[in-house]
């Protein structure tokens, strides 16, 4: 594919007089992982939800390279946008409870997107679900258990499987490792990194954990008060921060 997968131009979202995010622009290329970091309230979640179509931005363009060519997301009808969000896109929530159906078995959770795009063969849905549970390291005999019976880390992995099952091209992740302890985080990151490379996913990952972006992201955007203050290659930004806020952010990490 030629050209960027997602082009964002001067995206602005305000909440009354307050700025959610202002004048954000970037290109995301196929296979690229973009990290967005910043402190709480810096507008990174607002940005992500505007990109994913959960909120309508006040101004700007979000151009996605659909199978039929580049389209401005904001001009799409809701049904087109929702169809995209079931097929080409995935959204991994910070809290797996927001992204999973807690009363539905693991297999049903993974199968939902398949059924949403028209799969009507129980056997093949189940086979795909079993395969995906394996890929996110959940034992196949847990397929008929509900997410409530899973640990936090397993729930998060299940959420990832549920999102990736339809082979999306663009994945939005909102603090995917938040609320997990460090060893589970490490495993999850390892898994994510493998899946991203293996499937050639483009990912926009929002986090305040610099270790996560160091491991996963190719490129990094630093946000403060709704604006992008610095962007560049991850290692470049983290090792040689230019903006005062980025310097503060990098130096705030405890060295163990």
């Amino acid at each position, binding site marked *: 594919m030629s050209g960027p997968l997602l082009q964002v131009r001067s995206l602005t979202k305000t909440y009354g007089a307050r700025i959610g995010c202002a004048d954000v622009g970037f290109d995301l290329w196929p296979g690229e992982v973009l990290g967005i970091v910043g402190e709480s309230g810096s507008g990174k979640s607002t940005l992500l939800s505007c990109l994913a179509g959960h909120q309508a931005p006040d101004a700007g363009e979000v151009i996605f390279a659909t199978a039929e060519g580049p389209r401005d997301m904001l001009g799409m009808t*809701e*049904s087109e946008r*929702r169809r995209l969000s*079931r097929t080409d896109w995935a959204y991994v929530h910070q809290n797996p409870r927001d992204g999973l*159906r807690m009363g*539905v*078995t693991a*297999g*049903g959770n993974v*199968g*939902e*997107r398949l*059924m*949403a*795009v*028209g799969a*009507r*063969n*129980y*056997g093949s*849905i*189940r086979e795909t679900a079993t395969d995906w549970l394996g890929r996110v390291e959940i034992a196949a005999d847990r*397929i*008929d258990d509900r997410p409530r019976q899973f640990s936090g880390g397993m729930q998060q992995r299940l959420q990832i499987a549920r999102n990736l099952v339809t082979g999306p091209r663009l994945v939005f992740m909102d603090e995917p490792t938040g609320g997990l302890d460090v060893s589970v985080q490490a495993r999850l990151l390892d898994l994510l990194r493998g899946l991203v490379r293996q499937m050639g996913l483009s990912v926009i990952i929002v986090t305040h954990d610099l270790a996560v972006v160091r491991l996963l992201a190719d490129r990094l955007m630093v946000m403060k008060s709704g604006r992008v203050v610095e962007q560049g290659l991850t290692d470049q930004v983290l090792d040689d921060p230019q903006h005062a806020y980025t310097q503060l952010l990098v130096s705030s990490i405890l060295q163990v």
Partner: protein
Amino acid sequence: MTDHAYNFAYLDEETKRMIRRAILKAIAVPGYQVPFASREMPMPYGWGTGGVQVTAACLTPGDVLKVIDQGADDTTNAVSIRRFFQRTAGVATTEATTEATLIQTRHRIPETPLTADQILVYQVPIPEPLRFLEPRETETRKMHALEEYGLMHVKLYEDIARHGEIATSYAYPVKVGDRYVMDPSPIPKFDNPKLSDSPAIQLFGAGRESRIYALPPHTRVVSLDFEDHPFTPSKADHACDLCGAAESYLDEVITDDLGSRMFVCSDTDFCRTRREAGQVGRLGGTLEGEAA
């Protein structure tokens, strides 16, 4: 005898107009749930307040009304609604499916095929088929509007995963005219095939939820299923013990505390008509003997 303190069929004419508008809209958009301003009725929710309002809006003085509850004409719900309209509308009533012009039903479709001269009114407790999977009304409306029905199959998937087969045996979701997914009210799935291509008008009223939906005559209604787990209309594997019918939907009746049981047609009119014609089942004596 009409009780003259009431307007014909209890509801005032403006209310009936409002309900008729909703019914017309529902017929124009088969399977779509039309909101309407449901009234308080002199009976508790769950007793058919939605069906009663639809019936009241459709009744004319010349109608012959039949009311069935789980197939039976003689159970509390059926008797009280029938009496309600006898008092407030003074219409003729009947227990015979073939004589009725308007049939209000709870949880069954009569065994006798309906005709183009009949209206079948269903009582609906929860009109939203997606409700137990998606509690948000805003979201379910959006899903209907955008025809996003994958979730309905998740329910069936869960059935097979847990029970090895689609265990939903009543209120089995259907797709109407290739568009809306609809809850056919808690009829047994045995009755689902009768929904499709029926010559009668089928109206669904949910009083508490304030929704009316409809199937115009000869609408295609398909029960949802999987390719490798097709829909099967099921019934108890017996013949009726009173009339010997093998093809009707049966109720299981426990007759003592030693495990004895009998199976009888749930459609009492169908069963009686057969017995009057001389059909006898395993335990069926004569009609006169039973009355004693």
